[in-house]
C-alpha cells in the first residue's frame, strides 16, 4: 500500500529536499506551500516512479488547513506522515523593540501552523487506524536562545513542547510525534541571519559566514539532505519506539 505524507513549506529549501527524499522512499507526497511555485515543484518531482502533488496553502489559516487536508486525502489516500516544516524567520529586532504584529505573525506560522495541521490531520490518522508519524522541524534556536531571535526562538521552543504534548496524547493511537532541530543549515533564512550578524559586527558577509562555519565542530553547514535523511528515518518503522524526542542535526554545535 502506498503511504501518503504531507510536507509543508515544500516549494523550496529544506522542505523540498524532504519531499524529494520521501518520494524516492516510495511515499505519495503532498507538497504544501503558500507559494504557488509548489505546484510546479511537485509536478517536476512527479513521474512514473514518484507520486507528488502540490497544494497552495497558508498554514496560519485554520479553515484552509482543514479544507486542503481533505483534498489531499481525496487525492492521495489516508495520511500516515506529516512533516511540519513551513516556517518564517521573523524580525531580528531586540524583543522589547519588536513590533507586536511581526511577533504574532511568526507565532501564527511557526507554532499555530503545525497546530492547525494537527487538527486537520490527526483525526483522519486516528480513524484510519494505522498509526502515523508526525515530524516537526524546530531549530537549534528553539533549544538555546540568541540575541535578535526572540519571536523565532519562542515559536520553535513552543513547537518542541507542542510535539512532546502531542506525543503523549497520541501514543495510544500509535501516532509518534518527534522534532528535528536543525542548526546552521545553508538556507535563505540562515543567509539572512548571517547578513544580520555581519551588519551587527560590521564585517563582511563572507567573514561572518566563515565565523559561523568555524564554530561548527563538524566544520561545515548542514544541507537539506541531512534533514531529509533524519525525517525519512523518523517516518519509517525503524524508529518505531522513538516518540516525544528532539533530534539535533547541527554538526555538534550544541549537544543535547
Amino acid at each position: 500500500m502506498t503511504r501518503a505524507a504531507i510536507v509543508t513549506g515544500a516549494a523550496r529549501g529544506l522542505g523540498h529536499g524532504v519531499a524529494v527524499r520521501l518520494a524516492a522512499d516510495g511515499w505519495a507526497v503532498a507538497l504544501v506551500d503558500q507559494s504557488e511555485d509548489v505546484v510546479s515543484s511537485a509536478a517536476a518531482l512527479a513521474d512514473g516512479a514518484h507520486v507528488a502533488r502540490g497544494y497552495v496553502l497558508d498554514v496560519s489559516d485554520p479553515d484552509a488547513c482543514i479544507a486542503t487536508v481533505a483534498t489531499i486525502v481525496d487525492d492521495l489516500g489516508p495520511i500516515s506522515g506529516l512533516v511540519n516544516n513551513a516556517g518564517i524567520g521573523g524580525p531580528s529586532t531586540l524583543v522589547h523593540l519588536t513590533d507586536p504584529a511581526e511577533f504574532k505573525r511568526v507565532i501564527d506560522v511557526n507554532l499555530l501552523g503545525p497546530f492547525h495541521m494537527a487538527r486537520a490531520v490527526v483525526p483522519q490518522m486516528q480513524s484510519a487506524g494505522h498509526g502515523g508519524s508526525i515530524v516537526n522541524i524546530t531549530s537549534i534556536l528553539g533549544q538555546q536562545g540568541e540575541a535578535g531571535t526572540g519571536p523565532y526562538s519562542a515559536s520553535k521552543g513552543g513547537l518542541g513542547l507542542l510535539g512532546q504534548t502531542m506525543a503523549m496524547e497520541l501514543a495510544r493511537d500509535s501516532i509518534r510525534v518527534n522534532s528535528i532541530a536543525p542548526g546552521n543549515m545553508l538556507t535563505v533564512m540562515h543567509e539572512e541571519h548571517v547578513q544580520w550578524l555581519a551588519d551587527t559586527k560590521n564585517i563582511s558577509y563572507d567573514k561572518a559566514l566563515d565565523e559561523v562555519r568555524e564554530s561548527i565542530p563538524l566544520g561545515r553547514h548542514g544541507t537539506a539532505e541531512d534533514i531529509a535523511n533524519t525525517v525519512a528515518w523518523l517516518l519509517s518503522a525503524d524508529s518505531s519506539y522513538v516518540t516525544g524526542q528532539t533530534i539535533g542535526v547541527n554538526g555538534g554545535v550544541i549537544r543535547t
Partner: protein
Amino acid sequence: MTTGPSNLVVTGAGSGIGQAVCQLAQAAGVNVFGIDRDAHGLAQTQAQTGAGIAVCDVTDEAALIRAMDSAVEHFDGPPDALVAAAGIYRIAAAHDISAQAFADLLAINVVGAFVSAREVATRCVDGASIVLIASMAYEAGDTNEPAAHYTASKGAIVSLTRQLAVEWADRGIRVNAVSPGVIHTPMLRLVDNPVKAAAYLESGVPLHRFGTATEVANACMFLLGSSASYITGVILPVDGGATIS
C-alpha cells in the same frame, strides 16, 4: 542513497542490544567484529551472523587493545564504526553499594566504553562513527529499582559522548549515544514481576509496551550511517516516550 559503515566493532556482542546490532549490520552487508566476555553468547552471535569475534573483558585494557588489533586483522583494514554496548546492570540500594562494587561497575560501563572508543578512534583513518549506549536512567532517579552506580555510569556516558564529539569532530569522527528505555533484553529485571511490569508500562511508557533490542539497534544503525552525517554529540532516546511522561 545512504550508506552504512564498512567495518563495525561491537562490544557486548554476545546478547541483547549488541547482538541485535550485529544481526542488523550483517544483514546490511557491514563487516562485523564482536567482542564480549561471554564466550557462549559470542559464539551464538558468530553462528547467526558470521561476525569475527574476540572473547574479551572490556575492563582488561591490554586484552581490549589486542581484540581491536584482531578486528583490524579480521577486516583487513581499519574499523570505521563502533557500538559500545558492553555494560552491566545491578539493582542495589545506595547504602548497600560498596566502593569496590561502584568502581567495578564504572570500570565496565564507563571505562570500558571509553577505551573501546579511544581504540577505534586511534585506528580509524577517514573518520568514524561511534555510538555509545546510555540509558533513560541517566535522566532521573528511580526508587523502584535503585542503582546509583548504574545511573551514575550512564550519566558519565552522556558527558563522555558530548566531550568526544567535540574533541574528535575535526577528524570527522562522530560520537552519539542511544538512550534506551525499558527494552526486552536479558538485562531487564522488570519482567521478573509481570504485575509490576504491566503497571509500569501502563503508567510510565506512553507507547505502553517494552521496546525491542532490534528497535535500539535500528537507532544505532541510523546514527552509524551516512544518513546521520551531520549529527554528532546527540543523545537519542529510544524509550517509547518514557522520558517525557
